[in-house]
């Protein structure tokens, strides 16, 4: 059981990293417009598809 003396600080380190990433995300405006970020997954880079579609014809 004494392994938790080591594991818990490591877990806390991960938490700190997570908070660091979170702060970075806040700074780079990822939370300023939630609607756009939510939709952005729908748009893929359709330039490639577009070309392919044209080639198929």
């Amino acid at each position, binding site marked *: *059981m004494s392994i*938790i*003396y080591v594991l*818990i600080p490591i*877990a*806390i380190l991960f*938490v700190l990293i*997570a*908070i660091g990433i*979170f*702060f970075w995300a*806040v*700074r780079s*405006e990822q*939370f*300023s*417009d939630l*609607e*756009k970020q*939510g*939709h*952005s997954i*729908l*748009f*893929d880079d*359709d*330039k490639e598809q*577009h*070309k392919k579609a044209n080639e198929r014809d």
Partner: protein
Amino acid sequence: MSQSCFHCLEPIPSGFDGQVTYEHEQHPVCCIGCQAVAEHIIAEGMSDYYKFRTVKAGKVENLVPDQLKIIESYDNDAIQEDFISHQGSLNEVLLSVEGISCAACAWLIEKQLLALNGVARVDVNTSTHRAMILWDPSLIKLSEMIASLHNIGYKTYPFQADEEASQKQAVAKAYVRRLGVAGIMTMQVMMFAFAMYFGMFSGMDENFEEYFRWISFVLATPVILYSALPFLSNAIKGLKAKQLNMDLPVSMAIFGAYVASSYATIMHTGEVYFESICMFTFLLLLGKYLEFRARLKASEFTANLHKLLPLTARKLLESGEELIIAAKQLTLGDKILVKAGETIPADGLVIEGKTSVDESMMTGEHLPVSKIVGNQVFAGTNNHDGVITIEINQLGQNTLINQIIRLQHSALTKRPKLVEVTDKVAQWFVACLLLFATATAIGWYPISPDKAFWITISVLVATCPCALSLAIPTALTCAVANLTKKGILIKEAHVLETLPKVTRFAFDKTGTLTEGRFTITDVVTLSDSYDKETCLKFAGQLEHFSEHPIAKAFEDYFPNNRALDNVEVCSGYGIQGVIQNLNIAIGKPSWFDNYESDAQAVLFIDAKPVCEFKLSDKVRNSARNVIAQLKSQGVTSHMLTGDSSNSGRLLATQLKMDSVQSACTPKDKQSYVDDWASKGEVVAMVGDGINDSPVFNSAHLSIAMETGADISKNTADVVLLRSDLVAIPALITVAKKTKLIVRQNLALSLIYNGSILPLAALGMVEPWQAVIGMSASSIIVICNSLRLLKL
């Protein structure tokens, strides 16, 4: 095949048959502009836009060479100084983009700009309608980027963020960070707390327990010292202003429990409650953030005043040369040139040329005012048809527009502050709570000094006015969110409180009850040799060359072939020209022969009246219903209009309104409303122009139309985004329901607080139980408020 434009979804005018090919099908478009944009979007492989957009695109207008020149002037270093910041070798600019309506637009803009060489980063915000661009000035010019956005149909200009807006953004970010820290850390602390709870039953190694306590202490510290700090600073701020606010008991509980738990951890005695205070902080912060966010979104939406004044001006040099400079660099006595369609950048006297100026933003008078040499023109008004040279005589703070803004600000401080009442109640509640907590501490100290502290903390936490403080904001937030979905923007929290009490609605006429757009209602021919068709065709030919608002009514009758010569605008009368060797003219009835008629426009051929056109400003479809609905609820409706003609009176009778005041100056409107208010009436004002903005501050409640002037939208408490009066009854319904829910919430939280108080004071509630009780009461209140979302 649909009969609306593929790009902007507007109806297709007869005679135009442009088409675009999209996914192997032909789709009609309404104009060359839309065609070019749609073809560009499809050719660039960005056709996803049409798949995912949720709102129609704006109509596209072609850039004229003059506009291009203005856009190019943005590359000028002196002009750029105002709105550009530097990041290493890159430049950063914030652009205000007209026509962003949904996520698809944002995607389209980002895609278009990122394809350009030299653009490093683009970030489009769909809620503020702004785009941040980071670019390398050695590779691409700002004007090229703006022009490329124009290619896909977005009008763009540099945006200067004002102090207040950027401050609010910073606060929002700080909230998110605090919330994130509290959320992540609370999860961790909870984990160890659970281990300790179970340890209590199964017997835990003392070393482990000690270790877990220290870990909890380490994890809880950032939550208390970072996330919960605003509560403490607010409480101190309140104390300094000799006020007891809700933050005071909250921070006493949080920091008291934290200090005691830390003491217990370090000295190995007593209980620790890190998990309770972390959760408490998180929940409180969440409530506050949601409330703040709703308010932020509302204020962001209304456009900035800067948009009203142009950034650049055409300065005339001694040599007669024309130089585009930043409007800020103008000095008194400068001579500037203002072309047709441009906005006047500063107040001044006309020294050359004649024109008509649209001053509706200032005066509410929708007809253009003619300006000749020696007349004063005002910054922010729109030059209609002529080219004028003006000599600047007022700048900055002294311009009329800034005076109007100041008038608003002074009236703003006089606004009845209903919110203060709630604050007062809260003060009393907090005072009682503190007294009670002190009494508990004093009462328990002689009995058991050990327990006295924790019981006091329990009292503070359990009776924490959390549910109480959430009762109003959550209900308001849900109501506001619901209304936003319906296209009604609430900018002030007091709106929903005031609305159920309103006894009078005052409406502006043009643009509010009417659409501010003229249509032809009746055509009467006076001569047998010309039929209606021919008359309308002639009128359409002529009016095509006029910028007068009435001319827009004839837009549909413009034949594609131009057969007009010698067009001449006769200021104050109308417009004349020659078609098929006939001298035709359209304008005021009294133009020729002293002809008398009550029609707004008469067509003359060879100076003989041949046709009368009766025009009317189209009444909004919903106006009659809304006024009837208000009446059924015992609310009277009144018209306050700047229009001096009889049409206001006619419209009022037609709509069955209770009273009319025409030819009102902004000051008159204000005094009517003040008069009503002094008689104990609660007045709501609905309007759209700059002339309505002073009265907005006098009225208890102000509602502006989205189509109205920016200034009035900034002042108003409510903005109707769809410019539809139907929103008003909906607004009242939601407000009444909100009032009910707020009452239920207050009752619920008072019952909870009242019943837990004696239990906590008797020491029957452990702090962790107190937190659960507090959370449960908050959750019940929140759930109750959520019902407002589904109205």
